[in-house]
C-alpha cells in the first residue's frame, strides 16, 4: 500500500448512520477478479437510478462535491459484509480520509490495509463540519504525524489514532512482508503445537 502522511481535500458530508458495505458497493459489482476499477460503482444505488442515470438529489453527484476526497459520515460506518471491495471503491473514487464517530471492525482493518486514513471523532465536531461542508468548498487538512485536522480558517482539532496504525499508514507497510520476517517463530509454533 502507498504511504500517506498528510492530506488536504474537499469534504463531502454524508449525514447517515450505519452506512453498510452493501451501500458502499452493491453486490453486483463484486464479481470482478481485480482490485482496481471499483470507484465508478461507489454508493451506486444512491448515485444512480434503476436505469443507470445519475440521481440529481444525491449530493455526491452535485458539481460542488466533484473531486471530494475527505468523507464525513455518521456512526458505525462500514458495517455489514467483510467485502474489501468497499475500501477499494472508496479509494479508487478518490476518498483518502474518512471521519466518523465510529467504524465497524472489519471495515476498519480493511481500510487500514489499503492506506485510507480513518479518524474517529466526536459526533458534535462532525455535526459542525457537516454544516460547514453542506454547500461545498469546505476543505480539511489532515496531518497524521501531528494527529491534527485543520480547516481553512486555521482552527485545529486533535484526533487519536492507535500508534501502530499511524506508523503503518505513514510507512506504507506491507503486513505480509513484516510477518514473514518472523517466519522462524511461525515454524517454531507449528512444531510445538504440531499444527
Amino acid at each position, binding site marked *: 500500500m502507498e504511504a500517506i502522511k498528510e492530506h488536504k481535500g474537499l469534504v463531502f458530508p454524508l*449525514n*447517515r*448512520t*450505519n452506512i*453498510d458495505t*452493501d*451501500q458502499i458497493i*452493491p*453486490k*453486483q459489482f*463484486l*464479481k*470482478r*477478479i*481485480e*482490485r482496481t476499477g471499483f470507484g465508478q460503482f461507489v454508493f451506486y*444505488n444512491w448515485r444512480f437510478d*434503476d436505469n443507470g442515470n445519475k440521481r440529481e438529489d444525491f449530493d455526491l453527484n452535485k458539481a460542488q462535491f466533484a473531486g471530494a476526497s475527505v468523507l464525513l459520515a*455518521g*456512526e*458505525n460506518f462500514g*458495517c*455489514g*459484509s*467483510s*467485502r*474489501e471491495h468497499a*475500501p477499494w471503491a472508496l479509494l479508487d473514487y478518490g476518498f483518502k480520509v474518512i471521519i466518523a464517530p*465510529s467504524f*465497524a*471492525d*472489519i471495515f476498519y*482493518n*480493511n481500510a487500514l*490495509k*489499503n492506506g485510507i486514513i480513518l479518524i474517529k471523532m466526536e459526533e458534535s465536531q462532525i455535526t459542525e463540519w457537516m454544516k460547514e461542508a453542506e454547500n461545498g468548498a469546505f476543505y480539511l487538512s489532515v496531518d497524521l504525524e501531528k494527529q491534527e485536522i485543520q480547516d481553512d480558517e486555521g482552527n485545529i482539532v486533535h484526533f487519536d489514532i492507535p*500508534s*501502530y496504525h499511524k506508523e503503518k499508514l505513514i510507512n506504507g507497510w506491507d*503486513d*505480509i512482508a513484516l*510477518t*514473514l520476517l*518472523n*517466519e522462524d*517463530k*511461525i515454524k517454531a*509454533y*507449528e512444531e510445538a*503445537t504440531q*499444527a
Partner: protein
Amino acid sequence: MSKPKTVIEKIWEKHVVYQESGKPDLIYIDQHLIHEVTSPQAFEGLRLNNRKVRRPDLTFATMDHNVPTKDRDVVKDEISRKQMETLRKNCEDFGIKLADMFHPDQGIVHVIGPQLGLTQPGKTIVCGDSHTSTHGAFGALAFGIGTSEVEHVLATQTLMQEKPKTLNVYVKGDLGPGVTAKDLILAIIAKFGVKFGTGYVMEYTGEAIRNLSMEGRMTVCNMSIEGGARAGLISPDEKTVEFLRGREYVPKGDAFDEIAKDWLALATDEGAVYDKTVVINAEEVEPQVSWGTNPSMCVPISGTTPSLESVKEHKEDVKRALEYMGLEESQPITSIEIDHVFIGSCTNSRLRDLQNAAEIIKGRKVKDGIKAIVVPGSFSVKLEAEKLGLDQVFLDAGFEWRDSGCSMCLGMNDDIVPAGGRCASTSNRNFEGRQGNGARTHLVSPEMAAAAAVEGRFVDVRKFKSGVLN
C-alpha cells in the same frame, strides 16, 4: 488455582505466535475457509509477490455466493463463471481442496464447515466473509476477514490481531414455546443495537443458550456481526461433542474421546471476568420481524413500526428506512403483506431449519401470487431433506426446491427480489438493496417465513399453530 478464564482468552492464549508491546499479536490460524468472491485478488497478490500458500492442508474452498440454484450445468452469467473458474484454477495451482459446484461437499461455507467437522472447538477459523462468526457455535474463535487478510493467511497462516475485549451476552431464563434461536438473536440486536459488539468478541451464555440445538446456536452466533462483533461464540459442551462425533474431519475412536476432553476443558471457567456484560430475559422474547433497513430495526410480531415522534436519535435515518420499506409509521406488523418468501442462507438453511418450516407448511398452500423458494444450505442438507420427504412437502405447498448456495440472501446469482418486492426472509441482512435493487427485506425465522407464505402477511406462528390467528 490459576485465574478463571473465558473460552475466548483460553483460545487466544493458545494461538499467540508472537507478541510485542504496542503491536497487535500475531496469532495462528487453524482453519482457513475460502470462496469464489473474496479470494481472487488474494491469490493474485501471492502470484505478484511470488509467494506460496503456507498450509494448503489447513485451507478448504467451496463455491457458494455466485452459484446458480437451478439449472447448474450452464452458468449464464459470464463474470460469475469467470470468478468460479478462477477459484478452480487457484485451488489447482496452490494445492487446495475444493468442493466445487458439483461436489457432494458443496454448500454455503458456514454450513459445510460444521457439517464436515472442519469446525471444531478451540480452533481459530477465518474466512473472507463476515458470517464466519457462525462457527463460534462450537466454541471456535471464528471471524470474517477482508481480502488483504485472506492473502495474509494464505501466505503466513497467521494474522495480526489486537486482542479482543470480551462481552458476555447473558440470556436469562428460557425461550417460550414456539420462539426460536432466530427470534432470540433478532431480539438481542433490537435491544442493544447494531454496534454494541464493536471491538468485542461475544460469548453467549445462560440457560436458553445451553438449551438450544447446535443448529440454533449457529443461527445465534451467525448474526453476531449484525451486533457489531466480528466473532461470537458459545462454550463447548456435550451437545457440541455429540454433534461432531463421526464427522469426516474429526479424529475417530479413542482419539475422538481424547480430543473431546480437551474441547470440554475450553469452556469458560466459573468466575471468569468479562470486559462487559449485557443481559436479556429470554422469557420476554416473542417471534420477531424486522421492519427497517438494518437488523436492529426489528420488533415482536405483536408490535408496530415506530412512530417518528418517539424516535430520539437519528430520526432522519428512521424516516428514510420507513420510506425505503414502503411502510407507514406505527403500522401493525401483522398488516404487512409480502410477495416473496426465502428460506435459506447461512443463518437458517440447515436440516433442522427446513424441518421446522416444513412442519408449518405441511398440508397447506403458499398463497397465490407469492414466489416462495427453499434453498438448502448444502448439497448434503438437500439430500438428507429429500430422504425425509421434505422436498415433497415444500413442492406440494407451492415452494420451489433449489440447489444449495447463498442465493437470495444477497442476490449475487439470479435469485433476486425485484424492485418494490417484499420478502419474508430467513437471512441475516435487511440492508437497502440487499436482496435486489429496491427490494424490501423482512428478517424472520423459518417458521415465521413459512406461516407468512401461507397467509400472505406476517402472523404469529404460535397462533398459527393453534389455528386462531388474531
